[in-house]
């Protein structure tokens, strides 16, 4: 999945002003990808969301000191998202080669279900508040 282009970046302008644009674009991208990923069988959408979370996390890792604690909270939250979606992805990658190994197939399907529930719970409980906090930090 290609990253959305960030408009209006200027190498001569301060880092913070540019970082605001980059973080805002990556956040918008992640939010737009979330809804389809909340469907249980939407492996591709979940994979895309994982990539978007990773992109946001790396920008925050570099620039969170420009934005304060709410950006650090958002970075930690995106890491949690990336981890659970990564584990989900591992199940999807391993499942085709588990065909014919009944116990492994059952294990991977059960694990996938649990991880999906974990992802939905994480998203429903933390996402909105985290993103609002991050937006406040960007606007400050």
């Amino acid at each position, binding site marked *: 999945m290609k*990253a959305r282009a960030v408009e209006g*970046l*200027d*190498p*001569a*302008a*301060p*880092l*913070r*002003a*540019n*970082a605001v644009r*980059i973080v805002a674009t990556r956040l918008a991208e992640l939010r737009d990808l979330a809804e389809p990923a909340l469907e249980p069988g939407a492996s591709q959408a979940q994979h895309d969301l994982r990539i978007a979370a*990773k*992109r946001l996390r*790396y*920008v925050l*890792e*570099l*620039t969170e*000191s*420009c934005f304060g604690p709410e950006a650090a909270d958002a970075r930690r939250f995106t890491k949690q998202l990336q981890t659970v979606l990564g584990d989900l992805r*591992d199940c999807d*990658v*391993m499942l085709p*080669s588990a065909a*014919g*190994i*009944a*116990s*492994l197939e059952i*294990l991977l399907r059960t694990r996938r279900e649990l991880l999906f529930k974990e992802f939905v719970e994480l998203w429903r409980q933390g996402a909105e508040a985290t993103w609002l906090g991050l937006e406040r930090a960007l606007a400050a």
Partner: protein
Amino acid sequence: MARAREVPGFDCGEAFGAAAARIVAVRAEEVFAHADGVLDVEDPERLHDMRVATRRLRAALEICEPCFPPKRHRKALKRVKRLADALGERRDRDVEIAFLESFAGDAPDRDRAALAARIEVLREEQRRANEALAPRLKPKRLRKLRRRLRKLARAAES
């Protein structure tokens, strides 16, 4: 997993171009600092650390793209991506082998032979992934990439 290194002198008020030079220089050094022992399949964390460092460098290059001369940036990013892909091929096998080996002990008897066969296939793929990765980790090749990234960082400063 290794934490990202602090970027010395990082200043949010500094021009994006100057900050980009600093960021890419630090992220590049992180990659080379993790290059030892990567081909050792008995210690997969070494490869994992280098892979994460490569991903952070790639992210930094993508984030700071407007600060670099386009052609030089494109070439550097391409080489970093190739290294990341080669590390990723090995890592995927490491992860699956570890998962299957931890499960194999608890698996019912009827599935054990099939699991062992699957692990064997993965070990072979892991060996091939290592063979493909090895030339990219040769000191001469890494030195060349390092020089390329240093030049790129200097170009953002000017």
